[in-house]
């Protein structure tokens, strides 16, 4: 396959690395206004950003750009190529997403995948396998925390400029945790939310507290933050017969800690010596294949002309709908407050 990558920032580089390893990828072409020639060590062609894209030459497109151009490129790529892998978030806001959705609906046999790789992390896959009929029973509740510390260049980053990004930490990073909540609970509605721009003062939220409920009434809570001075990924899932707690993420920097899953079984005093302190098992993971697997699945789906198994348009709709509702709730509160 001949692959075209729009945007050669952090995500574009990562996608290029994965594509290089794929046996079915023949060529990689990059379009990035900041790139004049192919990066050292990468066998790739660079197209000038101002030149027309020769779409006939490409079998698949990867949209790895800032959010303000995501929807335009995604819509064009869908119409001209039909096989598109788009980084999260799917646009700046609900309207951007709807444009992408409409374009996907108008192209017969289109393959569209969004980069929600967290559901392919080993701790999450293990949790999914153990919940329900896996032994732990139905879910009673979920609490998820995902956050980072920002850093000295945080304010300069396009991700925190509303006109480019469309939102703050909830849209940028919290979206992954929202996707996981949907993975475990299905469709969610917003019960309440509190957003705060408490430290960075960028005009977008640096903390989001969101209370949700599933269609079956299961409550879920999300804290998405850009002021967690210790980088944190933690999802706690309470079930009828036990619980799982996934913490840490296998990342390049390792700043989220060792990825692990704690598994505990419900034990009352008739089964254990101490009530409320059940025997736990901890699985430590040292291999993350989520980046490879989501791209491989996209390319396989594109080749076979079938829908992808994950990162679907429906997955994207669910998270964007929750984010839309949270931002609308906050907007109404601000309007009410200023009216008083």
């Amino acid at each position: 396959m001949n692959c075209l990558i729009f945007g050669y920032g952090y995500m574009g580089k990562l996608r290029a690395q994965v594509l290089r390893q794929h046996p079915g990828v023949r060529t990689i072409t990059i379009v990035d206004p900041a790139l004049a020639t192919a990066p050292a060590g990468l066998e790739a062609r660079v197209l000038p950003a101002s030149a027309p894209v020769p779409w006939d030459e490409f079998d698949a497109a990867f949209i790895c750009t800032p959010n303000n151009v995501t929807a335009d490129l995604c819509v064009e790529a869908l119409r001209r190529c039909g096989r598109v892998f788009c980084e999260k978030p799917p646009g700046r806001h609900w309207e951007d997403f709807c444009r992408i959705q409409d374009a996907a609906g108008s192209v017969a046999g289109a393959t569209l995948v969004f980069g929600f790789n967290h559901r392919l992390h080993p701790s999450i896959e293990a949790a999914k396998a153990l919940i329900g009929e896996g032994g732990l029973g139905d879910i009673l509740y979920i609490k998820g925390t995902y956050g980072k510390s920002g850093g000295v260049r945080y304010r300069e980053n396009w991700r925190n400029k509303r006109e480019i990004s469309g939102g703050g930490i909830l849209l940028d990073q919290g979206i992954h945790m929202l996707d996981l909540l949907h993975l475990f609970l299905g469709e969610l509605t917003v019960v309440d939310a509190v957003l705060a721009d408490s430290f960075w003062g960028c005009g977008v939220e640096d903390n989001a507290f969101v209370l949700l409920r599933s269609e079956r009434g299961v409550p879920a809570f999300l804290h998405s933050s850009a002021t967690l001075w210790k980088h944190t990924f933690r999802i706690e899932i309470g079930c009828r017969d036990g619980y799982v707690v996934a913490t840490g993420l296998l990342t390049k920097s390792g700043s989220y800690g060792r990825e692990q899953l704690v598994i505990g079984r419900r034990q009352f005093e008739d089964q254990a010596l101490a009530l409320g302190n059940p025997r736990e098992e901890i699985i430590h993971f040292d291999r993350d294949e989520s980046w490879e697997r989501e791209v491989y699945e996209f390319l396989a789906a594109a080749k076979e002309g079938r829908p992808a198994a994950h990162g679907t348009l429906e997955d994207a709709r669910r998270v964007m709908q929750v984010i839309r509702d949270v931002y609308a709730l906050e907007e109404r509160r601000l309007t009410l407050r200023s009216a008083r």
Partner: protein
Amino acid sequence: MRIVQTQERFPLSSVKPLDGLVKYRQQCLTATRDALAGGATIRRTRSLVSGRALESAGAVEGLAYGRCPETGSVFLVELPPPEGWKRLLADVSALRRSRETFHFELAQSRTDNVYAPKLEWIRETLRLQGLRQARALEVLTAPGSFTELLKDSGMFTEVLTADEMELAHGLAAPGQQDTVQAVVLLESLDRVDDPTALLQGVAGRLEEGGLLFVTALVSSGFDMSVLGLRNLYLYPPDRANCFSLQGLSKLLSQEGFTLLEVSTPGVLDVEIVRAHLQRDPTLPLSAFERQLVEANDDMQAAFQAFLQQWGLSSFTRIVARRGTVMA
């Protein structure tokens, strides 16, 4: 790949008490010497993992062991030919099932603390790997205590058995060649004369993508490292091979298996060293090692948890997939 840490707790006395072991061990050593005295022997001079010349590791009551300079695995140097070794393993297996050994006296306790966690481990792995309606093969020298438990567990549609020496040496009868989706090797690689050949035999019966469950005692674990060949739990024929964790992982990889889990969820390392020290207070342990084994229960539990977390306990369990994980 994953590493599993458990909070299982049980005392050494409930599964393999040192006093009870000593008698059984002597019987094993005597049986091994008798097998070696029976005629021609085979001398292993090269590492079963790296192929490098074995260095002398010392001897267990006169029976020499050699060490792989690359991985630290240790191997009994002199063995009888395969048919003699097969007879020896059969004799020892029968002995374990007799009323003469601690295995019989502690049968229920061993079921609860040794076999039940292994069943749960297999069950959970099958769930994690999405393997359902599978057929399993247990490779052993019969009779074994685990086979019936495996059959009764309902995890597999069928549980077959294969003799480990026959599988290693291609001696299985026609009609016993059915392929399966899971193979269980409980400490089998520790005792067969040719672990590489056994894994090749396993690969012949295990479907591509099928799961291999291995347990073993490893030389890189705490009690094995501290005690070396003084460790009374190291003796032939049960421990003719004592791989290091690195050595065992490498062997499996070399034979075409992809490692999915490499854990050392042992709970007895510290207690084993302490039991040896009580038996022989003159054991040459460093002051630091003595501090560790004489520490209070909380510190010992924390240290044992550390050993589990970082692959440093002597009991290992491995899950491997035949072939590669990603296409």
